[in-house]
């Protein structure tokens, strides 16, 4: 099992009583799955994605990533999981504005300690995989929305992670471009990558092989 959460709670200590973002979450993901997490705004999709991505930890319960209990890992181990085992794709692409696409894609490799020549080589290969090699030396603001998201996907896969986490990956794209991005996800899943997408867009959700419906922080339907 790649991912397993049992009786997971996330409570933010805001106000006297706190805000419950997730409750009683039991969730397992096998390698190679394609899962969509859906639900209305405020249902806890992004929070769950952040916990899965080791950017946040559960207040209660247990999250195991590839058998390791995430709550017990130190900062370095968590950073290593984020860097080498997980790829993030965000709604607003989150490319660094002042460096070119090749350098943007190479950022995870930089934190993995790779040398510049190797970084450039691997980043170029990742860009080629998403059909963006011709834009390698452009700055992000010279790219269209779809191109930016392709570049962001290239960055997510450059370290060859086990799992891709995407938060509303088509939320900022038109239908056709969004569809192209989803096709790319399909391809990556076919190659064996585990994909978890958080979205409330039915077109995105129906591409997944398994759907998790979240409501008020709880899983309502699997």
């Amino acid at each position, binding site marked *: 099992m790649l991912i397993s959460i049992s009786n997971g709670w996330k409570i933010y200590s805001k106000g006297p009583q706190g805000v419950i973002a997730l409750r009683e979450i039991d969730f397992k993901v096998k390698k190679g799955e394609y899962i969509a997490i859906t639900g209305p705004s405020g249902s806890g999709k992004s929070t769950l994605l952040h916990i899965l991505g080791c950017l946040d930890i559960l207040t209660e319960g247990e999250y195991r990533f590839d058998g390791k209990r995430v709550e017990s890992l130190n900062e370095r181990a968590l*950073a290593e999981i984020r860097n*080498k085992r997980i790829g*993030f794709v965000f709604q607003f692409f989150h490319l660094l504005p*002042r460096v070119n696409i090749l350098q943007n894609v190479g950022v995870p490799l930089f*934190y993995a300690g790779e040398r510049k020549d190797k970084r450039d080589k691997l980043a170029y290969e990742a860009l080629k995989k998403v059909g963006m090699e011709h834009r390698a030396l452009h700055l992000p603001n010279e790219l269209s929305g779809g191109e930016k998201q392709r570049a962001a996907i290239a960055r997510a896969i450059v370290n060859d992670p086990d799992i891709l986490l995407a938060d509303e990956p088509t939320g900022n794209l038109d239908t056709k471009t969004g569809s192209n991005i989803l096709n790319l996800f399909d391809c990556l899943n076919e190659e064996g990558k585990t994909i978890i997408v958080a979205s409330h867009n039915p077109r995105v959700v129906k591409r997944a092989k398994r759907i998790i419906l979240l409501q008020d922080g709880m899983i309502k339907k699997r």
Partner: protein
Amino acid sequence: MRDFRELITIGFNNLMAHRLRTTLSLIGIIVGITAIVIIASVGEGSKLKIRKEIKKWGTDILRIFPEQQHKESFSVRGSEMILRASSYGSLPSLTEKDLVSIRRNASNVSSVAPVIKSSFQSNKQNITVWGVDKEFQDVAGIEVLQGRFINERDVKMKYKICVVEINSEIYRFFKGMPKIGSYLSLNSMSFKIVGLVKRKTLQTPFIDKSVEVYIPISIMEKGQREYYAKVDSEDKLSRAAHEIESILQSRKLGKKLYKARSFGQILKMQNRIIKIVTLVIGGIAFLSLLVGGIGIMNVMLVSVGERKREIGIRIALGALRKDILLQFLIEAIILCSAGGFIGTIVGLIIAWVTAPILRVPFIISWKVAFIGVTFSVLVGILSGLYPAFKASRLDPIESLRYE
């Protein structure tokens, strides 16, 4: 270990993205470092000059002077120290017997010479007339080039003869090389030139351009006597000074009326004053650097605020908190180092321009460059540490949401 070159490139690019802000924040550091470099450079130049002057005067020579006149015998005017020969007081001169007693009893003293010095101007030329006896030749390291130096008989018989020192001023004054046997007119008295000499020590400190003439001391009726003693070696200076003071004390009915000090010891006191002045001005310069550092800290804090999302992205992609800290710290250090580099260059240029005005030699010392660079890097670290720490403690989720 991350690729430092890459971190420097990232830092440089981020700074260049806000050129005006970067330039403005640099100015504070440039001003501070410039001031520190000027002070350090001029200070070093002054020390070098003092060292040279001590050598010119002679490192193995003691001056004997009345106790209470000590502090008045040198004064500071501008950057120069002026020897005031006119400020000797009411104490009676040492007698010939006193001198003989020193010569006989002070084991570390090789010779003692009385001197009466008088300076005046003639045809816009400074002329210094030294009334001396034969002992002066040894004390001042006089080398006879032609003819002879003043002897015992000249003093005893009050012969109107003189010895001229060969230096750069002499050619202009005599319109060529003076001739032995020719006459020189001083204060309407005519003196026959009997020797041409060169003097190794007892050069009047901080005054270079003067025609120096020696005449028998017995001819000089007015003027205060000064006494100079040559010590066997430099390391016996304090022992010799003590000997002279004790001998004179026993001859003056146990009263300690005279002091013997080397020029180096006297200059050391002046040096201490220069040090204090340098420290005070240096402190003010350091304050301006501090203000510059606060400016850098402000700019870095603004930068952290603006780049919250970037911080979130980097953490999501595998950066450690120390990577974020290092990135912002390096940016602050780049900023301050650039300011330090420019400040050091500007400071050295200003020091180079002002050195002739202040009459100190201009020197580019590693010490000065080291001070400039170290201070700027130090300010970079201190001013960048808090913003960098703040950046490294940001919540990645909050940062990713930052618009």
